[in-house]
């Protein structure tokens, strides 16, 4: 029967997650060690272990490989809360993107060896996706893989990798010798392999970012994930699912920003009345509320479509375009309302602002998904 809301189990998961994260991940924990001059949080290793122990890392991984076998709609419930808490750990990167690719493209052996470890939080596999100049289309990657006697030699730079410092393995898309233009092969590269250089980069993003350089890194033949040249078959769906959950995170963060913003608007007075009585402020608050709620609903719908394999690719793209832009709008509206207060590091708002900017662009920004939607619509109109 039609129901746009979570069922009892999903709702229970959501509430457990909210309570657990509220108790264990206070916003203060996101401030860097040299606060206020360093606002870059570090990998939250304790949270990571807890999240793994609770079974959340493996939630979407098939049961036979140590996971929970849950669908995207259930993950939506969880990621909304991870977003709300601004958890500083690569749950989505590892569990959804990398885990999703391994579960989809891996050999039986790879899946059996890697996935249980990944679910347990003991194996951190970090995808390296963004290319030169911030290229989000993985097919345009300039990282190359040459055949060698024992396996492959990889060369190239991924300039923007989140949580690279915590990686055991990198998931690296590259052009292999035999690939046709635009085809991509996927490799699993040990972070400790000779020739891998990880450079931590300062940023505004609220997540640890690094450049990962591969200078002729040699890996074995078994480092290939899936058929050479067919990487996008597995990577594209995993990135799509990842961005859907990013949108769930954006909505989760948006809910908390909305609470902060509305509470302030009710309390702060200017010219003798609470600023929340001014329509200018009301418009900002309603924009924020609508962006948040719509993103949440669209993400949930996109999850259902992907779980059901329903034929609504355009609706999924619309969700991603909308949700990415919502991230921008949520931060913008809240800052306009909070003005000076929100501009100060003392206040928690900027923690959301930073992360929202990162999430807006991560796995493709609004323009990227709008263009893909536009192409879909063009193709369907022409047919």
């Amino acid at each position, binding site marked *: *029967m*039609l*129901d*746009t*809301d*979570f*069922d009892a189990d*999903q709702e229970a998961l959501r509430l457990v997650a909210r309570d657990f994260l509220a108790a264990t991940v206070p916003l203060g924990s996101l401030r860097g060690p040299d606060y206020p001059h360093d606002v870059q949080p570090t990998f939250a290793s304790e949270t990571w272990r807890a999240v793994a122990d609770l079974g959340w890392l493996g939630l979407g991984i098939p049961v036979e490989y140590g996971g929970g076998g849950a669908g995207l*709609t259930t993950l*939506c419930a969880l990621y909304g809360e991870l977003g709300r808490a601004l958890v500083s750990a690569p749950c989505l990167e590892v569990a959804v993107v990398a885990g999703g690719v391994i579960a989809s493209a891996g050999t039986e052996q790879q899946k059996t060896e890697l996935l249980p470890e990944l679910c347990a939080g003991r194996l951190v596999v970090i995808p390296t996706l963004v290319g030169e100049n911030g290229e989000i289309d993985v097919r345009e990657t300039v990282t190359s893989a040459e055949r060698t006697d024992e396996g492959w030699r990889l060369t190239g730079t991924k300039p923007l990798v989140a949580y690279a410092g915590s990686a055991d393995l990198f998931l690296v898309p590259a052009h292999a010798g035999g690939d046709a233009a635009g085809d991509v092969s996927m490799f699993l590269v040990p972070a400790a392999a000779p020739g891998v250089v990880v450079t931590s980069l300062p940023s505004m993003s609220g997540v640890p970012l690094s450049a990962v350089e591969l200078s002729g890194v040699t890996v074995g033949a078994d480092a290939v994930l899936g058929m050479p040249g067919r990487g996008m078959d597995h990577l594209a769906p995993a990135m799509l699912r990842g961005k859907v959950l990013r949108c769930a995170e954006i909505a989760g963060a948006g809910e908390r920003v*909305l609470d902060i913003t*509305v509470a302030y*608007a*009710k309390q702060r007075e200017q010219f003798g*009345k*609470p600023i*929340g*009585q001014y*329509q200018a*402020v*009301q*418009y900002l*608050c*309603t924009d924020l*509320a*609508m962006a948040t*709620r*719509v993103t949440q*609903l*669209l993400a*949930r*719908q996109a*999850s*259902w*479509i992907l779980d059901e394999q329903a034929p609504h690719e*355009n*609706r999924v793209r*619309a*969700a991603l*375009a*909308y949700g990415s832009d919502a991230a921008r709008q949520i931060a913008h509206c809240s800052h306009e309302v909070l003005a000076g207060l929100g501009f100060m590091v003392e206040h928690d708002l900027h923690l959301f602002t930073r992360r929202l900017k990162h999430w807006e662009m991560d796995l493709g920004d609004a323009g990227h998904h*709008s*263009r893909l*939607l*536009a*192409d879909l*619509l*063009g193709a369907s*109109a*022409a047919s």
Partner: protein
Amino acid sequence: MVDLRLGYDDWRAEVRQFLADELPPGKEFYLDYDEAEHKWDFAVEFTKKVSEKGWIGLTWPRAYGGLERSVVEQYILLEEFHRAEAPLLNLIGWSLTAGMLLYGGTEEQKATMLPEIASMKTIWAEGLTEPGAGSDLAGLTTSAVPDGDDWLVTGQKTYTTFGSRSDLLLAIVRTDPSAKRRHEGLSFFGVDLRAPGVTVQPLWNIAGGRQNHIFMDQVRVPASRLIGEVNRGWEYITRSFYTSGVPFLRHSTMERKYRLLTAYCTTAKRGGRLLIDDPEVRGKLAEIDIMMEVQRVLAETGLSDTVNGRRSDATSIYQVLAKESIPRFAQLAFEIVGPLGQLSGESPYAALHGELQAWYLQAFGNHAAGTPQIKRMVLATRGLGLPK
């Protein structure tokens, strides 16, 4: 469990078949903005066929002429009708009046008035707005005073769509001039628009439609036409109008327009290429698509909340976004189509059969039933709890 299937596939197929049979091409289009004689006649005929199927009171109790079907089936029916831009008449009758009767009408009123609406015997017009009272009903001056068993109604209503075509006016009037608070002392009447003392004056709108001034001078209304009880008008309007369960489906009427637009883009060339091959045009189509998707998901959420017995915030968001998207849609369509969109009529030069200019002008009617600014205010204060 999250499940976005509406279900009732057979029912949807039945509705679609009905529309395929009864709505020939060229007869769609939004009647509100053009009640020319031949269009009105077709709409009456069409609505009577809907009535014969029993679909007007689809969800009402059988005792009142209804079929006791689910709200999801009603949603599907109306979604298909909106998508086809079918000229279904008597919205005020089967939504606003019926909702109010079901909530507050006397048993006798329900037993007589509802079947008359279901069978297209009576067509109702809306009598809320007055020259000095729009969204704010505090300024209402139309009054009714008792006179024997009847009431005498005096005052003016305005912007009344189909005022010259309808049988009854659902009029809100002051029945207790001494009420202390401005929303007290109001009552609803069904005023016979052909009764002595009623004068209907045309008021033409810029989209080519006719609205009306309704002047009432000591119009005698029997007590049986006082809806429910006296002085409970404010309760009736707030409880039944906003919760009458008739879904919001403005975005579905956008779908047919969107299809016309994309069809145009696949045939018209500019700068040597098809419009659909221009990334900028496709980008505008994507913006429209997102607009429709957002509204659809909100409408379905509202429906889901109704079905599952939850309070819903989705409809108040829907109303803001739907209102604000109307002029944006018209503008995007114009930017895609260009200057030939100005042409009306059926000339071969007019893009989209002359419809686009009508969309644009109709968009300036987006204040009807509350301006976008009022909808924002409602969301901010009732939805978010910000101070009034």
